[in-house]
């Protein structure tokens, strides 16, 4: 923890300027919930750190058919918005209260699995990331942002400044399954959003967390749903094929075997939440 410089820019231009000046060795930190534990124990010893807590990137606002979430908006702020309920659920099931007051939505994209739950919901919502660099901003679908375990499309001279989520009235659902009821790493996280055309599904998004190197889409499962009425057979088929969409790992929480098994269970449970209310038939 021999940090020699700690920068606290008060604006995005100032932050970008500091980043250009110090280059890729600068550790960029938002809420600090991932970086600080490593620094505190001497496991990470950056020479220079830039904290974004005061850079003015924490607004959440609804404009142009999108919810624009500043990268350093906290999970508590996400919990307090009511434009997109599934994001509230995602925030509510992440970390503890004090952690949610610190952890940021942008930072969640840089949290190694099984963390990074909020990004799973964002993925199902077709969110885009806005990256700012020396030559301006660019937008990228979140689905294209992740490239591997803790790797992504962010250039060394860029900052993640915003998450942009298209406003939608599509029904969406969220389940995080951990070993405890709160403040727990995920065994698996599932977010789903369905677009209906009449009584059939026109388009589907299913995103999975904690079962791959980063939040991933269950694309085969999504395809399996399109054109169905989301009956029990369609749900079962999508749940089964979702296990082929993931690349689960073993950690202290669960084995890859168990995670894969739970992908099927919880994809099924999430879709059941979204299924049309059938007439009671004593199921």
């Amino acid at each position: 923890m021999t940090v020699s410089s700690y920068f606290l820019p008060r604006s995005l231009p100032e932050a970008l300027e500091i980043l250009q000046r110090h280059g890729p060795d600068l550790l960029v930190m938002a809420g600090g919930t991932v970086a600080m534990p490593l620094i505190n124990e001497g496991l990470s010893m950056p020479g220079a750190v830039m904290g974004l807590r005061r850079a003015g990137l924490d607004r959440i606002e609804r404009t142009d058919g999108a919810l624009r979430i500043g990268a350093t908006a906290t999970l508590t702020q996400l919990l307090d918005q009511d434009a997109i309920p599934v994001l509230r659920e995602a925030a509510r099931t992440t970390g503890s209260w004090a952690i949610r007051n610190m952890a940021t939505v942008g930072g969640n994209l840089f949290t190694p699995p099984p963390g990074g739950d909020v990004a799973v919901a964002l993925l199902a919502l077709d969110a885009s990331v806005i990256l700012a660099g020396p030559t301006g901003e660019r937008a990228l679908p979140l689905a294209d942002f992740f490239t591997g375990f803790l790797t992504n499309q962010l250039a060394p001279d860029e900052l993640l400044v915003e998450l942009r989520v298209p406003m939608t009235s599509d029904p969406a659902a969220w389940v995080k399954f951990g070993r405890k009821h709160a403040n727990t790493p995920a065994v698996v996280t599932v977010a789903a959003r369905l677009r209906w055309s009449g009584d059939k599904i026109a388009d589907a998004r299913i995103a999975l967390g904690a079962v791959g190197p980063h939040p991933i889409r269950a694309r085969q499962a999504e395809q399996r749903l399109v054109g169905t009425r989301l009956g029990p057979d369609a749900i079962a088929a999508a749940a089964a094929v979702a296990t082929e969409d993931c690349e689960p790992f073993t950690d202290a929480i669960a084995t890859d075997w168990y995670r894969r098994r739970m992908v099927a269970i919880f994809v099924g449970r999430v879709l059941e939440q979204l299924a049309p209310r059938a007439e009671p038939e004593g199921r």
Partner: protein
Amino acid sequence: MARLRGTGMAVVNYPTGMNLGGDPSQALVHATTSGSFVVTLSATDLGQGLRTVIGQIAAETLGVEYGEVMVDTADTDTGPHDMGTFASRATHRVGNAVIAAAVEARQALLDVAAEELEAPVDELELDGHGNLMVRGVPARSLKVADVAALAQFKYGRTIAGRGSFMKPRSPVDPETGAMDPDSTEAHACTIAEVEVDTETGEVTVLSMKSAYEVGRQVNPALVQGQIVGGAWMAMSHTLYETTAPYYPAPDHGPKDFSEYLMPGSLEQPEIESVVLEIPSSNGPYGVKGVGEMTANSPIPAIVNAIYHATGVRIDELPVTPEKVLRGLDARKAGVS
């Protein structure tokens, strides 16, 4: 999805004190000028409330108010030797030592009072509230505080006592294992109820109901604290905790409270208990040790409840959802 419920039971006994003895505890007690008493120890309070119960035992034996006893622990320059706080030994061992010290201090107090009251010392009694008197003659009484001051300034005496307790060290016969491994034994019986999700293997403990027999409760609220906290720890050991999640493989050892799983504030089974008091022959006021044992009987009770809910026998801790699920799979496949 099915949720299956089951109930299981288990009983335990638990020995009090370092098993082979040879573990002394010592205590000193002295009066201040104002008639308060200081108990000096080197035993440690881990949070179980040792200072409090030792203060109660000292007050009881001295015959003064609890609030007049201060427990000073722990500093090796002032506190006499104590083996340490472990093995459910502290209340039993230190308590016995404190009683011995308090009896001696009480005698010194009564000797001064006898002289002052010009009464035979064996006719004096303490009322437990800071007064001593000639038995049956309330008019001939003194406040303990006044006796303490008289001892200091009129008679030039100390009101003090030394106490020690040690169960002598006993050997083990290496061939037969013949030994004397306990001072006394406390007992518990727990009935646990669980619910098991057959799709995920998740186990929810719904309730843990226990009977405890702990000799004498010095402080029932603190005994309850051990019972409730111990039941929680037992549930935690049963379902969650390990530093080597895939033991004996050494990999994936947790490094933080996120990976080291323990139930939290939302995993709250119903906990109910009844406490029997059948005084032990050798504990202070009949005490037996209750600190450690409260985490014991709930563990097999929960595991047995899982079996009665599902038909799956898990003989390996912790009982993770994966183990339950694999057990359910095996039953379904007709293996077992």
